């Protein structure tokens, strides 16, 4: 079985197990301030790390290229309270234009 299939199946199983587990365990298990705080920070650090990695790296190399311009526009769009589709399309268009004209 190829690596892609293993990753697809394993992550799907893990994700559903986590969702289902949430519906099974009593709320009192999680209602500890420290556990709540840590679990709130997990998506924040992962998403932030992923944005940085997917914008400024290629394999194990750091680089600033057309993607940085696109992500800057995404940040500006969210700050300007543009609707979700406008933020994404604006970022993609900016990145594509910078790529096309080698800015």
């Amino acid at each position, binding site marked *: 079985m190829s690596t892609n299939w293993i990753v697809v199946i394993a992550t799907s199983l893990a994700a559903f197990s986590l969702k289902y587990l949430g519906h099974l365990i009593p*709320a009192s298990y999680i209602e500890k301030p420290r556990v709540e705080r840590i679990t709130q920070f997990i998506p*924040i650090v992962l998403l932030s790390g*992923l944005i940085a990695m997917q914008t400024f790296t290629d394999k194990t190399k*750091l680089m600033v290229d057309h993607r940085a311009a696109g992500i800057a526009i995404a940040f500006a769009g969210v700050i300007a309270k543009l609707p979700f589709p406008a933020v994404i399309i604006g970022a993609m268009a900016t*990145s594509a234009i910078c790529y096309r004209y080698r800015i």
Partner: protein
Amino acid sequence: MSVKRDSIAVGVAVGAAGAAFGAVSVSDHFSILQTCLLSLVLFSGASQFALVGIIGNGGSPLGAIATGAFLGTRNGLYGIRMAALLNNRGWRKILAAQITIDESTGMAIAQSDEPSAKTAFWYTGFGVYFFWNLFTLLGALGAKSLGNAAAWGLDVASPAIFVAVLMPRLAARSARLAALCAAVWALSLTHFLPVGTPILTTVVIAVIAGWR
């Protein structure tokens, strides 16, 4: 009525981003079948984008699986709150678990009474599920004819969506500090660790930030 209408509107708006996922996944060398299964079974946008992004960049399979799973932990936390609201048994619990995501939970807790909250959960959950999967297939089929992903801006679709998901969570100063630390930390380890693993180590920052 307006709860149902609003819920379905959220389903269409969020589901449309499935087209970006379908296209990104195929350009990261996942087959159309694998791409559609990710949306049908994994069904968690951030985990899906993270997974194909890490593998597409030549990253380690374990790093991809672990990052996808960690990003899924918040759905588990939503499940705890939603289980108390829905009070389901058996197969309805399984269905509810599968559609427990940011949007269904967010719409449910935004309602002022319990019946509306239940309606919002089911309509938003199934609305997003239907449209996310429909658009994933369309995006995957479309990407086959696109060619170079960068020429269409597809290489920033995933991080741009992450920006839109992350920013509303950064109201507190501690959250902004943790996010900044995580970005700098992940980038500074890029050169030294296998692709897909620096991102996992940012969980340490979440533990430190939340310990207090």
